[in-house]
C-alpha cells in the first residue's frame, strides 16, 4: 500500500493542471490594461479638500487655481470640475479623475445646492447605460463616480442640516465616505466625541454611507483586528498638507505650528494613513464594484422601469421584452422611422 501511495502522489504531481496561475494572469493583464478611478470631493470651501487630494496622491493637482472672494460667493452656483491625471507606480497605470464641486454650501442661500452634483452622477450613469446598450462596446469609457469624499467641518457639534440633506440626496447614487476635515483643530477627546455623535446622527437620519465589506472568516487574526479598528474609526478625522517639514529628524508632510508639528502620516495625529490605505491600497476595487453592482444597477433598473411604464402609457405597443434604447439617437434614422410608422398607420386605417 505504501507503493500505491507513492504512485498516487506522483500521479497528482503529474496531474498538476495549472489554473493556480490564474491570479498571476489576472495580475498581468490588469497591469497591461491599466486602471481607472473617479473620486469626487465635496464640502464647503476652506475644508482642505484640495490639500487632502494632493496629500493622498502625492502630487499637485491644483496649481494656479483661483479662489473666489466672499462677495462673489454670495450667489454662487455649484460647478462640476474634472481633473484627470495619469499616474504610474511600479508599472501599474492609474487614470485618476478627481471631480471637484466648487461652490457647494458657499452661497448664502444653499437650497438644493446638491442638485448639480446629483445631476452629474446621473448623467454619468446614463452615459454608461447608453454605451452598454449600444452596438459597439469595445471602448466604453467608465466615467461613473466610484467614491465621494464628504468633508464635515470640525467646528460644530455634529452634522448640520446641509450635511444631512447632501448625504441623503447622494447615498443611493454613490459610495459616500464622510470625513472630519481639518482635524488638527480637535483634541483626541473632542475627536472621539464628534465621531460618536456623527455616527449616531448618520444612523438616526438613515444615511447609508459606504460600508467596508466583511472580512472573510479565513483571514488571519491580525487582518481581522485591523479591519475591526478601521471600521470603529469612522468617520476618519483627516489632516492634509502641501508642505514638507522636518520632524524628529525626518522630512515629512506636515503642518508647522509654534507649539508643535502635525505629521500627516502619523497615526497618533490623525487618520490620514487609514484613509489612504483604505481608499487606495485595499478598497479601491471594492468601491468600483459596489458602484457597478449596486448604485449603477439600481439606476439602470429604475431607468428601465420608468421607460416601460411610459411606453405602456403611450399605448404604442405591448412588448414583453423591455425596449433597449438606441445607443446614439440618430436624428435622420428617427425621422425615417417616424415616416414609416405613419405610412403603416395610414394603410391600416
Amino acid at each position, binding site marked *: 500500500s505504501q507503493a500505491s501511495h507513492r504512485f498516487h502522489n506522483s500521479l497528482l504531481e503529474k496531474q498538476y493542471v495549472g489554473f493556480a496561475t490564474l491570479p498571476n494572469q489576472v495580475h498581468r493583464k490588469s497591469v497591461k490594461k491599466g486602471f481607472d478611478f473617479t473620486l469626487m470631493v465635496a464640502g464647503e470651501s476652506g*475644508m482642505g479638500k484640495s490639500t487632502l487630494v494632493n496629500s493622498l496622491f502625492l502630487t499637485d493637482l491644483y496649481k494656479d487655481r483661483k479662489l473666489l472672494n466672499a462677495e462673489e460667493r454670495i450667489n454662487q452656483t455649484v460647478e462640476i470640475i474634472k481633473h484627470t491625471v495619469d499616474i504610474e507606480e511600479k508599472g501599474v497605470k492609474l487614470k485618476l479623475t478627481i471631480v471637484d464641486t466648487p461652490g457647494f454650501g458657499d452661497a448664502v*442661500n444653499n437650497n438644493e445646492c446638491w442638485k448639480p452634483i446629483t445631476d452629474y452622477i446621473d448623467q454619468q450613469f446614463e452615459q454608461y447605460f447608453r454605451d452598454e446598450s449600444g452596438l459597439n462596446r469595445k471602448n466604453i469609457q467608465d466615467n461613473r463616480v466610484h467614491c465621494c469624499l464628504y468633508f464635515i467641518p*470640525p*467646528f460644530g457639534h455634529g452634522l448640520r442640516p446641509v450635511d444631512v440633506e447632501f448625504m441623503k440626496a447622494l447615498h443611493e447614487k454613490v459610495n459616500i465616505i464622510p470625513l472630519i476635515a481639518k482635524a488638527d483643530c480637535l483634541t*483626541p477627546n473632542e475627536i472621539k466625541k464628534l465621531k460618536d455623535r456623527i455616527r449616531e446622527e448618520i444612523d438616526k437620519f438613515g444615511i447609508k454611507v459606504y460600508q467596508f465589506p466583511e472580512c472573510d472568516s479565513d483571514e488571519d487574526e491580525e487582518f481581522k483586528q485591523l479591519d475591526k479598528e478601521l471600521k470603529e474609526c469612522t468617520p476618519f478625522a483627516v489632516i492634509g498638507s502641501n508642505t514638507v517639514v522636518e520632524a524628529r529628524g525626518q522630512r515629512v508632510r506636515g503642518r508647522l505650528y*509654534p507649539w*508643535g508639528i502635525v505629521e500627516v502620516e502619523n497615526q497618533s495625529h490623525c487618520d490620514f494613513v487609514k484613509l489612504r490605505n483604505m481608499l487606495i491600497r485595499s478598497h479601491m476595487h471594492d468601491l468600483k464594484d459596489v458602484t457597478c453592482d449596486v448604485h449603477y444597477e439600481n439606476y439602470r433598473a429604475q431607468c428601465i422601469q420608468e421607460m416601460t411604464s411610459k411606453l405602456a402609457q403611450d399605448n404604442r405597443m405591448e412588448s414583453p421584452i423591455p425596449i433597449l434604447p438606441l445607443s446614439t439617437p440618430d436624428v435622420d434614422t428617427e425621422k425615417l422611422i417616424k415616416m414609416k410608422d405613419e405610412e403603416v398607420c395610414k394603410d391600416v386605417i
Partner: protein
Amino acid sequence: MAATDVDIFMNEEKRNLSLGGHVGFDSLPDQLVSKSVTQGFCFNILCVGETGIGKSTLMNTLFNTMFENEEASHYQNGVYLRPRTYDLLESNVHLKLTIVDTVGFGDQINKDESYRPIVDYIDTQFENYLQEELKIKRSLFNYHDTRIHICLYFIAPTGHSLKSLDLVTMKKLDSKVNIIPIIAKADTISKSELHKFKIKIMSELVSNGVQIYQFPTDDETVSEINASMNAHLPFAVVGSVEEVKVGNKTVRARQYPWGVVQVENESHCDFVKLREMLIRVNMEDLREQTHARHYELYRRCKLEEMGFKDTDPDSQPFSLQETYEAKRKEFLGDLQRKEEEMRQMFVNKVKETEAELKEKERELHDKFEQLKRMHQDEKRKVEEKRRDLEEEMNAFNRKKVAAETLSLSQPLKKEKDKKN
C-alpha cells in the same frame, strides 16, 4: 438789566488764568470715578458666529468664569438671540455683564434672513432706550442699559477668506454696533497661513465698505498700543477653560498629541491682545461710541421718520415743544379724518345694502304678483271647464230623461201593435 448784560458779554473770548495755589478741582476725575464705581458698570457683548465655533468657550476664557451653557443644536429653524445677564465683581468694581448669543446662526440651508433677528435685537435695545429718554418722567440714571456695546464676529478658520454669510451680516451690522472681527479656533491655522488670511479678510472688509471698530488713537496715553493693535486685526483667538501643566506652571491650554496650545501665550494666539483691547483698555470707549455714535444715528433716523426736524423751511431752529404740539395736532387731525372716512364708508355701505335689499324686495313682490295672476288664470280656466262639464252633464241628463219617457211609451205601442 441782567438780560442785556448777558447779551453784551456773550461774544467775549475765554481767557486763561493762572492759579495762585492748589484749588483742588484736579480731584474731579477721581470724584467721577468714585461715583461710577458706586453706580456700577454695565457692559453688553453680542457674539455672532456659527454653532460650535467657540463663542461660549471664549466668553468663559475672557472672564475667567464658567457661565452656564448648554450645547446648542444645529437644527434650529431660524436664528434667535439669547441674552444672559451676570453680576461680576473684581476689586471693588461691579460689572453688570450681558452676553447675547446668536443661536442657530449659520445652520440653515437658506441663510438669506439670518441677519435679520440680530439687527432687530440691536434696534429693539436702542428703541427701549429712546422710549425711556422721551418719557416725561424718566429715570435714566436707574435704567438698565441693554444696548449692545460690542459685537464679536467669529470668523471660521478656513484660511481662505470670509464666508459669504459673514460679509452680508457684517455689512448689515456695521452702522449699528461696534464690530470686532475675530478668527475663531485659530489653532488650526499655521503662522504663514494666518498672515495671508488676516490680510485677505481685512481687504475684503475694506473693499466692501464694512466699518469695523477702530481702537481710538486720539488719547496719547493709549494711542500707541491701540494703533499697534489695530494692525493685528482680526484677532486670531483660542479659548480654553482646561488647565495643562507646562513646565512648572499650570496654564489654560489645549493639549494635542503634537504639542500644547497656550491661550495666554502671545506667540500662540492673540487672546491676550483681545482681552487687553476689549476689557482692559477700551471698554469705556466702546460704551461711549455706542451711545454717542450708533445710538445717536438710530435716534436721528427714528425721529426723522416720525417727522421731526431740527430746522424748519426757513432755517429757524425748531423747539421740540412746538414740534411736539404740531405733531400732536397733526396726529389728532389724522385720527379725526380717519374716523370721518370710516363713518362715511359705513354710511355708504349701509345705503348700498339698503338699496340692494329694496331691489330684492321689489323683485320678490313682482314675482308674487305674477304667480298670483297665473294662479287666477288657472282657476278661471278650471272654472270654465267645470261649467262646460256641468252643461254637458245636464244636457246628457235631459237626453236621458227624454229617452226614458220615450221608451216607456214605446213598449205600450208595440204591445198594441202585436195585439192587433
